[in-house]
């Protein structure tokens, strides 16, 4: 810490040892939650519970089974297929790549932070924000279908709660990693991201029953199938995927590998972009 004594600069104590990356995680949370795109992210994630509330009031629900089917239908078709990936693309994708393109990365790299810790801290902060908002949205969805005259029964309620929260949290992490690397590689990450979603998560899902697919959404469904003890959900997944689902362990492993691969690729591309940027400055 410095103090100013007249015209003399005096160092009174050296910088402390507080881990700087925790500050960066908090800053990334703030950037994610307060950015201009955040409003769009909130709207996207508010969509499943809003549609759920409208459905509950408009549809003629006469038993708990129908409630569970609509709940899982909204979780699979709306939350995991559209709202969550689009929200991840908007909020987490540009967080690290913008540091490079905007030229603010230099402030971080000339502090006590390695490249890896900058990447991880920003990723963790963005993912934490996305998980918090998406789990809140999923909680509203659970509340919408868990109570009332024909609400979910005890066992289904537990499965909806645990399975829904777990899969949304895991999905947020994986989609954030995927869109992070897309933002690092491509100059128009939004266009590429939407293209990626349409091809891998939407078109591939329409492939015939029984075919195993290497998409994030498909592995999230396999994981959900393995960790959730809900007969209604299982019959819905079997109807759509047949015996093409992977085991929960295999899908979990593949999702971990996707996240690790995406982060490693991001780190390598980050260094490459720094290098090319420095080259352009010297040209």
């Amino acid at each position, binding site marked *: *810490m*410095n*103090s*100013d004594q007249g*015209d*003399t*600069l005096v*160092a009174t*104590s*050296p*910088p*402390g*040892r*507080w*881990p*700087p990356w925790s*500050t*960066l995680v908090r*800053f990334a949370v703030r*950037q994610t939650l*307060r950015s201009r795109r955040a409003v769009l992210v909130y709207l996207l994630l508010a969509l499943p519970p809003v549609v759920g509330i409208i459905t509950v009031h408009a549809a003629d629900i006469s038993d708990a089974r129908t409630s569970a089917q609509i709940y899982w239908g909204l979780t699979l078709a709306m939350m995991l297929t559209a709202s969550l990936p689009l929200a991840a693309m908007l909020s987490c994708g540009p967080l690290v790549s913008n540091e490079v393109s*905007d*030229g*603010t990365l*230099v*402030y*971080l*790299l*000339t*502090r*006590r*932070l*390695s490249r890896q810790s900058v990447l991880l801290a920003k990723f963790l902060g963005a993912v934490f924000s996305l998980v918090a908002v998406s789990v809140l949205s999923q909680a509203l969805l659970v509340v919408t279908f868990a109570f009332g005259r024909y609400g979910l029964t005890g066992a289904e309620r537990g499965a909806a709660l645990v399975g829904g929260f777990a899969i949304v949290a895991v999905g947020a992490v994986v989609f954030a990693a995927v869109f992070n690397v897309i933002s690092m590689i491509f100059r128009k990450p939004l266009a590429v991201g939407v293209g990626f979603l349409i091809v891998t998560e939407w078109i591939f899902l329409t492939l015939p029953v029984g075919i195993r697919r290497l998409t994030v959404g498909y592995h999230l469904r396999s994981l959900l199938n393995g960790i959730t003890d809900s007969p209604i959900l299982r019959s819905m997944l079997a109807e759509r995927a047949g015996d093409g689902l992977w085991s929960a362990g295999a899908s979990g492993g593949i999702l971990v590998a996707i996240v690790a691969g995406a982060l490693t690729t991001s780190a390598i591309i980050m260094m490459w972009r*720094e*290098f*090319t940027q*420095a*080259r352009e*400055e*010297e*040209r």
Partner: protein
Amino acid sequence: MAVVVELRELSKWYGEVMGLNNVTASIPSGITGLLGQNGAGKTTLLALATGQLRPSRGEIRVFGERPWNNTALLSRIGYCPEGDSFWSGLTGREFVRMLARLSGMKRRQADRAAEWAIEQVGMTEHMGRRIAEYSRGMRQRTKIAQALVHDPELLILDEPLSGTDPVVRADLINLFKRMAEEGKTVIVSSHVLHEVAAMTENILLIDHGQLVADGNIHEVRSLLEGQRQRIAIGTPAGRKLATLLAPKEYIISLAIQEDGGLLLHTSDPERLQQELPRILLDNDIPCSEMASPDDNIRAVFGYLTRRPQ
């Protein structure tokens, strides 16, 4: 004087583009000016010194250590980049405080350090405003504050005076000099000779990635004697300023610009730089910027490298 930064046959290539080529030099404590045209290799050298880039060949040592992947060393270095980039939505205080926290300070310590650093650059009254509302000169001062905030032993400043008005420029030069007197090492890059001449006599001159001269600035300045230099002064009161400057013997010509600013030719830019802040303050003339459209360093390189510039 102790050697703080040592370069040994240091080279950096970006594929086919050469950033720095076989540079050997020593930078002692005190102020050193790093002079060169845009694209000469100054920023590459500073990026190597702050561990942002790894040398392609040779070696750079700061305080006896290699900077690449050496985060512990970075707490002894303060860096002010040339680029005009900031995170959006932050106030000056939040920006400097966050970078203090990223230097390893606890909350209260960071608060005090940020207040101190902002005060050093004369930005105290503006630190609660968003950086997006700042003028170029204010943003420049904020960048210098973040470089000072963790009280580094070595300050590396890439074009720190660009965009500043003459009064702020004089204040910042005094601040750099004061830090050097306190035993810190200050490396200032610039493409404007008289800016560096106002701070130090010790220079490194870089051209096309190579060190073309190092040592005393007077030898370089003697090469420029008799050459006139163009200076642009951003002010809405160009006519009034022209009337005040016209009698000075070092003013060769004066012209009022369309925006009200003043464009002049001078035979002694350093003297103009010394006297201008007092003239502006005494006559209450606002001034947003002072710049040298002529790259006078090009003439020096012409002499030193025998290349037509």
